[in-house]
């Protein structure tokens, strides 16, 4: 999302929302970032998102709800995506905590997870099943990293967030972000190798 020509328009939308609660501006932000934020939620929730795809929807919904007020804290010099991803990440972590407490959802999770994992998109059932299995392994490996390392690695390597943006969003020095990233990547590669997954 770095250097994206849409960023100026996004900043303007954030400003319009903060100035007059312009719902059109908020909807434009949601439309633009929903696919990327959905991926961020999937990465943060990890294998819980695979077990229960409804959980991801709940977390994302909570993230959007929090965003309504959280946008007031947005500083125009940073990239809107990284800021929004931070809000969604926190919502996901809270949702995960609640989910862990409410283990009564396990049965629903198993049912939904099975549906999500085997049915696929319907275009190529065999390929979809393969992708689903791979996704399970990769997300389980991400789980084992713990937070904030998994969020840092995902946002940096998969979504292209800069180290400076991550340092700002995670409130840590750039040097710490870099060292955490290096350690997390090494560990993730090790876990993936154990699982037989080669990037």
């Amino acid at each position, binding site marked *: 999302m770095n250097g994206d020509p849409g960023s100026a328009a996004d900043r303007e939308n954030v400003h319009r929302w903060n100035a007059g609660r312009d*719902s059109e501006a*908020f*909807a434009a932000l*949601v*439309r633009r970032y*929903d*696919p990327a934020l*959905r*991926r*961020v*939620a*999937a*990465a943060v*929730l990890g294998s819980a*998102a*695979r077990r229960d*795809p*409804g*959980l*991801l*929807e*709940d977390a*994302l*919904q*909570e993230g*959007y*709800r929090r965003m*309504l007020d959280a946008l007031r804290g947005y500083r125009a010099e940073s990239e809107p995506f990284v800021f929004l991803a931070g809000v969604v990440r926190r919502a996901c972590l809270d949702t995960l905590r609640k989910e862990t407490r409410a283990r009564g959802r396990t049965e629903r999770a198993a049912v*939904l997870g099975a*549906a*999500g*994992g085997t*049915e696929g*998109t319907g275009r190529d059932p065999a390929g979809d099943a393969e*992708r*689903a299995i*791979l*996704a399970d392994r*990769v*997300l389980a490996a*991400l789980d084992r990293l713990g937070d904030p390392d998994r969020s840092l*690695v*995902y946002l*940096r*390597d*998969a*979504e*292209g967030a800069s180290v400076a943006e991550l340092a700002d969003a995670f409130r840590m020095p750039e040097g710490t972000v870099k060292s955490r990233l290096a350690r997390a*990547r090494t560990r*993730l*590669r090790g876990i*993936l190798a154990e699982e037989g*997954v080669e*990037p």
Partner: protein
Amino acid sequence: MRRDDVRDKALGALLRRAAETAAEASEKVRSGGALGYGAAHLEGAVASPRHPRFSPGRFRVRIVGAAALAACLAAAIVVPALARFRADRELLSSAAEHLSRSLIRESSSFLAELPAASELEAAAADWAGSLFRTDIDL
């Protein structure tokens, strides 16, 4: 490009594909099986969150529920307590009536056994005489 950068990019691509797969599955569940649920629906959902922290409608329902619960509790606790109180009062009232009747009866028999007034006066004079003796020379 450095070798490490290439490896990081490959790792990033793998993570992104996994996240996309999970995101697609969740979107499919939400849209009831059809992909392409889209942001239009989401926009509506964001405009009116599914799980608002405060909703006037839900608040009203809770108030009505609390009132109904209070009424049920009143019926279950207060009414039997009132009934018990009333029964106790009747019992006490009848006991008091019985007691007063007995007292009156006893009082009547006591009065009937009392000696006549003249006998009382004579007894009193005797008693006073025993206190103030007249046969002593001062």
